[in-house]
């Protein structure tokens, strides 16, 4: 039963949609034969390559190809999941039988629903052949240019250049079948000049929309500005957060919008839905169809994802629902469920903020005294209900005085409530696809925020 993914060598192409359909149907037949009432099959395939550089040279350079089949069976109101990357018939049969055996070892699951039937999906086009065709030599050439610039300017460059493609398919014994494929290209660079560093990163489905040289120049220019950092006293400051810094902070809010998290009383939205919680200038939706987003138009059960307005003018209005949480709440499933079984239920994964019109330069010009923040680092939740997060600034913190960047500042630790922060947003830039390191990619604006709480300062 082994399927062949390749037509031009082991690491060249994803399996065809026909291959995936055939594989899923084969496993569904095995499920029926083994006595499952219902069977669901996920197939996830990845072809990824990553070139990593540091000290102005490539030091790691990797590629991977993997395909995982994941089987969930239902019988007598019980379910379990077994995953394998062994694709021969015996191994797939063993996976089906293990799933049934695991399922039978437990009590009946009171909230388990019958699997959904056939669904209709809105199309998204996120597979770009130009990205899929990127070679190790292409990545090496771009890295070489970045490193050459660093050497020329007396700096040290470190970063990554990623190119990859993935596809996901889900099918079940009630006729549901969905597939999605996409590509991604990512370039990230840290430029060091003495003790000073700065950083820039981009991420896109289409490698032609990624400009490694522009990112390199941006990081390089800011690294120069970051030299000779001044130590400032910890205090509340007006901050201008660039989109990556906004993303990495607000990214910690996403799970609070899961209906199951609210039901479990571990969300900061407990007893706060429908009340003014953020500033009236804050509106937020989950929208996988937004042009700045990537991702599949279906969830872990194969349900179509819907656009959901989460916050409207400062008021949290809606949660996202998987099928089980929707039934318990007597709501409609929104297509945000995780693959079952999962005690976490669901989450919005494609956050889109409604931005503003102010550029970062205008934010700086309008600031008497404040800090421009490039990036945040090691963010962790300190208080889950007030959503106090701690973390550090990194790779470029600059003092703004009288409308101008005047000097670099030593990095601060912050302890800041995200809820409070989103009540204190004075200006916003246009929402853009941003990429950081602490949260997944989102569409967020740069923000000028008053009273951001820095509590301690570090040595650099």
């Amino acid at each position: 039963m082994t399927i062949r993914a390749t037509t031009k060598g082991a690491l060249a192409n994803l399996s065809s949609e026909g291959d995936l359909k055939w594989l899923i149907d084969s496993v569904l037949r095995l499920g029926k034969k083994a006595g499952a009432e219902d069977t669901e099959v996920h197939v996830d395939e990845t072809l990824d390559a990553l070139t990593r550089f540091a000290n102005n040279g490539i030091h790691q350079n990797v590629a991977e190809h993997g395909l995982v089949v994941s089987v969930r069976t239902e019988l007598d109101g019980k379910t379990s999941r077994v995953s394998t990357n062994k694709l021969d018939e015996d191994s797939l049969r063993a996976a089906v039988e293990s799933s049934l055996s695991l399922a039978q070892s437990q009590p009946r699951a009171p909230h388990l629903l019958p699997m959904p039937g056939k669904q209709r999906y809105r199309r998204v086009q996120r597979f770009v052949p130009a990205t899929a065709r990127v070679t190790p030599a292409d990545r090496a050439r771009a890295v070489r240019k970045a490193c050459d610039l660093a050497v020329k300017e007396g700096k040290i460059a470190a970063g990554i250049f990623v190119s990859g493609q993935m596809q996901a398919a889900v099918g079940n014994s009630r006729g549901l079948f969905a597939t999605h494929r996409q590509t991604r290209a990512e370039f990230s660079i840290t430029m060091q000049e003495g003790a000073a560093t700065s950083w820039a990163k981009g991420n896109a489905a289409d490698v032609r929309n990624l400009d490694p040289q522009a990112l390199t120049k941006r990081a390089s220019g800011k690294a120069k500005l970051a030299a000779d950092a001044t130590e400032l006293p910890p205090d509340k400051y007006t901050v201008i957060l660039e989109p990556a810094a906004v993303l990495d902070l607000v990214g910690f809010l996403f799970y609070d919008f899961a209906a199951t998290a609210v039901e479990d009383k571990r969300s900061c939205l407990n007893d706060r839905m429908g009340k003014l919680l953020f500033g009236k200038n804050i509106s937020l939706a989950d929208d996988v169809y937004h042009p700045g987003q990537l991702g599949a138009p279906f969830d872990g059960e194969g349900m179509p994802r819907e656009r959901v307005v989460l916050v409207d003018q400062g008021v949290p209005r809606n949660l996202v629902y998987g099928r089980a949480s929707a039934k318990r709440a007597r709501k409609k499933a929104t297509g945000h469920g995780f693959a079952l079984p999962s005690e976490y239920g669901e989450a919005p994964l494609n956050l889109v903020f409604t931005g503003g019109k102010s550029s970062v330069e205008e934010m700086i010009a309008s600031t008497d005294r404040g800090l421009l923040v490039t990036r945040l680092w090691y963010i962790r939740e300190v208080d889950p209900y007030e959503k106090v997060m701690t973390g550090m600034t990194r790779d470029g913190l600059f003092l703004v005085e009288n409308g101008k960047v005047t000097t670099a500042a030593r990095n601060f630790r912050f302890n800041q409530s995200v809820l409070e922060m989103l009540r204190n947003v004075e200006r916003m830039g246009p929402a853009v696809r941003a990429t950081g390191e602490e949260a997944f990619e989102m569409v967020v604006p740069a923000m000028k925020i008053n009273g951001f709480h820095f509590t301690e300062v570090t040595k650099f």
Partner: protein
Amino acid sequence: MWDLAGHSLDVAKLRGAAYADARVMHLRQRDLTTKNGEVGTLAQTESIGIGVRVLAAGAWGFASTDRLTKEEVAACAAEAVKIAKASAMAKQSEVVMALEDAYVDSWQSPFRKDPFEIPLEAQLELLLKADAEMRREKRVTLTETDLQFRKIDSWFASSIGSRIHQRKVISGCGIVATSYQGDEIQKRSYPNSFGGQHALQGYELVEEMDLVKYAPRVAQEAVALHSAAQCPRKTGTLILGGSQLGLQIHESVGHPIELDRVLGQEANFAGTSFLTLDKLNTLKYGTEIVNVVADARLEHGTGLGTFAYDDEGVPAQCTDIIKDGQFRGYLSNRETAHLIGLARSSGTMRTESWNRLPIIRMTNISLKPGTWREDDLLAYTDDGIWMDTNRSWSIDDRRYQFQFSTEIAWEIKGGKKMRMLKNPSYSGITTEFWNSCDAICSKDHWTLWGTPNCGKGQPMQTMGTGHGAAPARFRNVNMGTAFGNK
């Protein structure tokens, strides 16, 4: 497996590799969780594949595949060489590897009870019982339990002639009670937070942890925290329980001693380190009672950083990291050892799976036990705060400034544990903190804690690390800053 691994090495050499190694890995994992008295996750995963690392044209290449046929493995090895040659287009210098002997060996981690052979019904019954015990406390609003088991087989082959098979069995378990009241969410965990305790052991670990016994206490404390006093903001004496100290070691000793980080190889992601090469043998890292080792040997214990050989074929070793308070050693590999004057790697290359490149990783980074009895440590502390069980952790990208918060604390007055404190936190600068340590408890109170979720590298790899620690006391520590607004 040896045929496939050997074939990949042959192809790599034919294509021009000066050195090659291959890892065939077979990983099996079982996850069981409950939530509020119902089964949450019940899942099993299996993954097998090969990763081939080659040195060609003086640069590295790595490729991996899960198609374990001779043809696909050959294509994978050829791809690795092609990638290495592309790396050479932008290489900084020729890779130099420290000499290492070839080993032919087979090793299995010790365990008494294979967790995959214990009936699932019994495992679920245990979790549901612990869950029910927590829910007897009615003001608990969420109860969670988990078991995780892994069995990892790896077949390592290298072009210098090593053929090493290792099998590791890993177990983990934990319980959590959460209570939401008013405007606060409080939680307590046992035996540790974020998944509990994990070790290179079989099901006997789960039995030793006795989750059911501790479930009522966990639930009661989660509720009691709501009415506890707020941890004050002050500078004073801090005592850390063993599990929290384990994470403190992880963040403020374990990561900064990674030589790849020190050399700038992680500058874009995980960060660098304040432990620049000039600090070796010159920096006073801590007080004279502070002794830290990196020890992957079985005699150190069955930790998540225990093995017989690392994923570069180097035997497990014990390295002094801090000796009598002085900084003495880094974690190195065959490529970096010579940069600190070593003739040999310290054996710390580890990989998450067949599709990931081995990178320098913590093994078991442990604070050696001191001499104090826990009772005496308490009795000889006039005024302080005892903090236990991690709730949040954060440190800057050079590993100077950290902040931790814990689930619970107790005030110490006149040598006695007094009232409970909620929302505890402490912060500081790494070397100032370790230079304020004036008491460490003895071997009787020492546990090799497992941290199963250490992330590093790009693509990201999650690795388990071990951290032996006993409760210890620190003076003049900043406390309570994280919750300064409370």
